[in-house]
């Protein structure tokens, strides 16, 4: 029993050592994809609430289409489909696919955040002579921010987990590294146990960070409870 246990620990340790070098790639994909998704999602969300149909209709179609297709299929489509025409490497294709997918979700979150703001806020800003852009920037978005913060941090955590899907186009991130280890040594249970544990560790840190931000905002907020 004791001997078995020590052997197990050694295996787990070896797996960990093998996997750790792949973690930076997972983090890099997550950060880049989420940054692009945020920028694009802000644009999509603003377009969704625009009174101008030139913006609102295409953005609505964009959201419906992107949300209706599994991320994995989007990754394949962008890498094997578009990627062959545009000559995209795995990293660019993977990050692009995750960004696009999450921009649709974030766009909906931005839209709901804007729509949660009372109509009187828009009217007060317009009545003071502010343009729609000034109104969004100085009045609406700052108020929408704390409302969407919890949903946005959920999406961030989801992006981290879904970055594992880009392993399917051969990008060597955490999940891919796990597959390599296991196909070399055939220790299924231990390998995926460690992979799962690493993801769990990262998402745990993120969710702590998110609740710290939410709490901080509530304390330093506008005293509205």
């Amino acid at each position, binding site marked *: 029993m004791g001997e078995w246990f020590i052997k197990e620990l050694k295996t787990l340790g070896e797996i960990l050592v093998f996997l750790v070098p792949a973690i930076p790639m997972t983090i890099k994909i997550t950060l880049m994809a989420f940054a692009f998704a945020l920028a694009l999602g802000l644009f999509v969300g603003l377009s969704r609430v625009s009174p101008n149909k030139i913006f609102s209709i295409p953005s609505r179609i964009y959201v419906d289409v992107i949300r209706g297709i599994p991320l994995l299929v989007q990754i394949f489509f962008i890498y094997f489909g578009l990627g062959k025409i545009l000559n995209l490497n795995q990293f660019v294709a993977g990050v692009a696919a995750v960004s696009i997918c999450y921009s649709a979700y974030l766009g909906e979150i931005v839209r709901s955040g804007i729509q949660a703001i*009372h109509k009187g806020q828009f*009217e007060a*800003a317009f*009545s003071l*002579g502010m*343009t729609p852009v000034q109104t969004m920037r100085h009045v609406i978005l700052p108020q929408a921010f704390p409302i969407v913060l919890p949903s946005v941090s959920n999406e961030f955590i989801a992006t981290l987990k879904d970055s594992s899907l880009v392993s399917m186009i051969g990008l060597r991130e955490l999940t891919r590294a796990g597959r390599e280890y296991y196909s070399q040594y055939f220790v299924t249970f231990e390998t995926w146990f460690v992979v799962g544990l690493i993801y769990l560790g990262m998402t745990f840190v993120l969710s702590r960070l998110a609740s710290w931000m939410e709490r901080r905002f509530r304390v330093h907020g*506008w*005293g509205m409870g």
Partner: protein
Amino acid sequence: MIIQVKDVVKRFGDLRALDGVSCTIEAGEVVIVLGPSGSGKSTFMRCLNGLEKVDSGVVIVDGMRLDHSKSDLRRIRQTIGIVFQQFNLFPHLTAMENLTLAQKVVLGRKPDEAREIALELLKKVGLSEKQDVHPAHLSGGQQQRVAIARSLAMKPKIMLFDEPTSALDPEMIGEVLEVMRDLAREGMTMVVVTHEMGFAREVGDRILFMDQGRIVEEGRIEEVLKNPKEERTREFLSKVLKG
């Protein structure tokens, strides 16, 4: 005249919220708008500063036609200040920031200049010591006074008040009316929807009485109050004067 409204119709679906409204308002006048609930008073006010687009008719403010262009519309909005029943202060900004934001982004005033103007106005409404406080920490009456000051910071020629005291506890109504009384005394052109008949009688020059989207009676305030020509006006007045 500073405001001219001609044959204005505003529809919401099948409902004619304004059904051919015409009137003129002279600079320096204080006009009281009265009428039963749903008669179109708020819609009338909102058409004056372009928050609602009219379906037909014209609104001319300080020589500018309201429907001409977006930049004209913004100029008109700088000419007209509006104070809402629900204050609509920006909750994420302090009282001071509420007053300086539009000065900076709309009028391009320097931060120092904007602060100076803001401070002067906060003093005027009796709230200079609340400059760093967020709206959530102000009473209703204080919020409404900040909202008035916020409008005044744009140096408007006309102020619209849509039931500015209706959302307030009775003990706070006086402080807001006091600020409005001062404004009227300084010669501000004002259009005021209110049920505060004491204030109306004291400060108002003229009454517009609305019913079902029309101005059904109009005249000098004492005259309309003393002997209203229209049955509808008489009925309404007897209700508000009793209540």
